[in-house]
C-alpha cells in the first residue's frame, strides 16, 4: 500500500467484497439459513408448548382450595371476624362462606345431567362450609397442612378438607411434565448446537482456501471481517426470524383448527411474548456472528 486509502475506495472495496461473497456462495448460505431457521423453529415450538403447559398448570393450581365443614351456618354478622382471623395466617387469596343452600345448588351443578337423583332430598342435607383459596405461590403440601391445622382451631369447625389426593396427582403430573420438558430442552439445545456448528464447519470448509489466500495477500481485518459479519448477522437474524415466522403460522393454524372446540375453554393458548422473540433472534444472530468471527480470527493470525 502506497499510503492510506480514501474512505470511498475503502467502502466500495468492502461492499464489493460483501456483495461478491453473497452472490457466489448463496446456495451454501441459504442452506445454512434454512438450517438455522429449522433449529430455531423446533426450539421455539417446544418452548411455546412448555409455556402454554405451564400456564394451563397454573390455572389448574388456582382451583386448589381448602374446605372447612362447619356444624352450623355462620351468622353473617360473625363472618368478617372469621375472615379476618383466616387472613391473619397470610398468603390467602380469597375466603368464601358457603351456606347449606349454596352447597346444595353447587352439588346439583356438579352432578350435571345426573341431578335428577337429588329430586327427593331435603335441601339442607349438605353441611355449610368456608372455602379458603391460598395464593398460587403457597402450593407446598407442608404449608397447606399447617394452614389446615390452623383452620381446625376456628370455632364451629367439624372437619377441614383439602384435596390431598388430588394435590398429589397434580404434583406428580407436574413433575412428569417438568422432566419431559427438561429432557427435551436439553436434547433440543444440544441439537441446535450440533446443527449450527456443523453448518459453520461446512461454511468454513468452503471458505478455508479463500481465507488462507486473503491472509497471504495481507488483507486486513476490515476487509476479511466485514463480509463475514454481514453473513453471520444475516444467517442468524434472518434464519431465526424465518423460524419464528413459521412458528407463528403454525400457531395461528392450530388455534384456528381448535377455535370453538371445547379445549380452548380450559385455557387460552398464547404466543411467545415479544421480548422472548427479540431475545431468540438476538441470541442466534450473536451465535452465528461469533462463530464467524472465531473463524476469521484464526485465519488472520499473521
Amino acid at each position, binding site marked *: 500500500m502506497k499510503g492510506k486509502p480514501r474512505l470511498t475506495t475503502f467502502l466500495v472495496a468492502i461492499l464489493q467484497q460483501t456483495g461478491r461473497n453473497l452472490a457466489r456462495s448463496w446456495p451454501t448460505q441459504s442452506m445454512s439459513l434454512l438450517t438455522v431457521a429449522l433449529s430455531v423453529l423446533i426450539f421455539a415450538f417446544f418452548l411455546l408448548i412448555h409455556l402454554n403447559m405451564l400456564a394451563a398448570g397454573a390455572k389448574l393450581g388456582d382451583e386448589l382450595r381448602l374446605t372447612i365443614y362447619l356444624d352450623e351456618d355462620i351468622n353473617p354478622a360473625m363472618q368478617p371476624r372469621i375472615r379476618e382471623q383466616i387472613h391473619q395466617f397470610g398468603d390467602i387469596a380469597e375466603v368464601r362462606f358457603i351456606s347449606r343452600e349454596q352447597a346444595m345448588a353447587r352439588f346439583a351443578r356438579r352432578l350435571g345431567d345426573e341431578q335428577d337423583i337429588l329430586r327427593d332430598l331435603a335441601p339442607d342435607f349438605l353441611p355449610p362450609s368456608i372455602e379458603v383459596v391460598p395464593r398460587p405461590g403457597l402450593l407446598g403440601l407442608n404449608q397447606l397442612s399447617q394452614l389446615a391445622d390452623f383452620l381446625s382451631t376456628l370455632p364451629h369447625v367439624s372437619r377441614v378438607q383439602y384435596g390431598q389426593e388430588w394435590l398429589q396427582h397434580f404434583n406428580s403430573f407436574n413433575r412428569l411434565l417438568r422432566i419431559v420438558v427438561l429432557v427435551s430442552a436439553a436434547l433440543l439445545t444440544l441439537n441446535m448446537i450440533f446443527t449450527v456448528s456443523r453448518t459453520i464447519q461446512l461454511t468454513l470448509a468452503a471458505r478455508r482456501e479463500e481465507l488462507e489466500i486473503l491472509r497471504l495477500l*495481507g*488483507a486486513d481485518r476490515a476487509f476479511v471481517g466485514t463480509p463475514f459479519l454481514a453473513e453471520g448477522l444475516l444467517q442468524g437474524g434472518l434464519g431465526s426470524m424465518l423460524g419464528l415466522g413459521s412458528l407463528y403460522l403454525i400457531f395461528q393454524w392450530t388455534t384456528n383448527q381448535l377455535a370453538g372446540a371445547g379445549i380452548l375453554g380450559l385455557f387460552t393458548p398464547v404466543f411467545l411474548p415479544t421480548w422472548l422473540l427479540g431475545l431468540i433472534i438476538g441470541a442466534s444472530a450473536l451465535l452465528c456472528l461469533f462463530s464467524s468471527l472465531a473463524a476469521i480470527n484464526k485465519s488472520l493470525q*499473521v
Partner: protein
Amino acid sequence: MVKQTQTTPPMVECFKVGKVYPPDVVALRDVSLSVRQGELVFITGSSGAGKSTLIRLIGRQEKPDTGMVLVNGREGARLNQAQQQRLRRDIGVVYQDFRLLPRLSVSRNIAMAMEVDYRPWRETSRRISELLEKMELTGKERRPVETLSRGEQQRVAIARAAANAPSLLLADEPTGNLDEQTGLLILNLFRELAAAGTTVITATHDSKLYRDHGHRVLHLQQGILQTDGEQR
C-alpha cells in the same frame, strides 16, 4: 537495469538464519545475505536444498528458528498485526504451488491482491489488462483458473504477485511449467520491475534464466549458502 551503488539501502537482510523442521530436518543453517533495493537475485540449489524455505522466511510465512530476517530494516516479530498485514501487501509472492482460487476467474484472482490494498477500481482493471498482455494471456480474463493449462496458471500467479508493483517480489520456481520462450517473458517482467525499484528474489533450478545475463546468484546446498556472486 538499475545501477547498484553502495548507497542503495538494503531491502532484505538475513543474519545467520537457521530453520529446523520437526523432528530433525535441517532446512537452513546459518544463512547470511543482504539484497539491496531494486536488485534482481536468483537462488539456486538442487531439489530439497532449502530454496523455498528461505523464500518463506523472507516472506514471513514462517519464522526462523535461529538468526534474524529483516525486510526494509524491520524484523517481523517486532510488528503488530496491522503492520504485518500492511507489509505483506507490499510483498508479492509467486508460490511454487500457485495458491490461486481455482473457481474464480483470472481477473478476479489478480484483482483480489489489489482490492485487499484498496486500490481504486480503475487502476485495478487497467493494471490487470496490462499484466495479462505481458503474460500473453489476453482473452482469458474471464476463464476460471481451473480451466487453464498449468503454465497459464503459473503466469496468472506471477501477474498477481506483480499486480501491486510491490517493493519486494519473491518468486519460487516461477518458470517450472513454462517453456523457454515464455520463461523469457517472465525474466523481462522481473527486469522491468527491478528497474522500477522492486527487489526481486527468484528461487529457480532453471539455469537459462540467470545464465548469460550477469545476475547475482546464491547457491544453496543442503541448507548452507555455498556461493554468492555473479554467474555466467
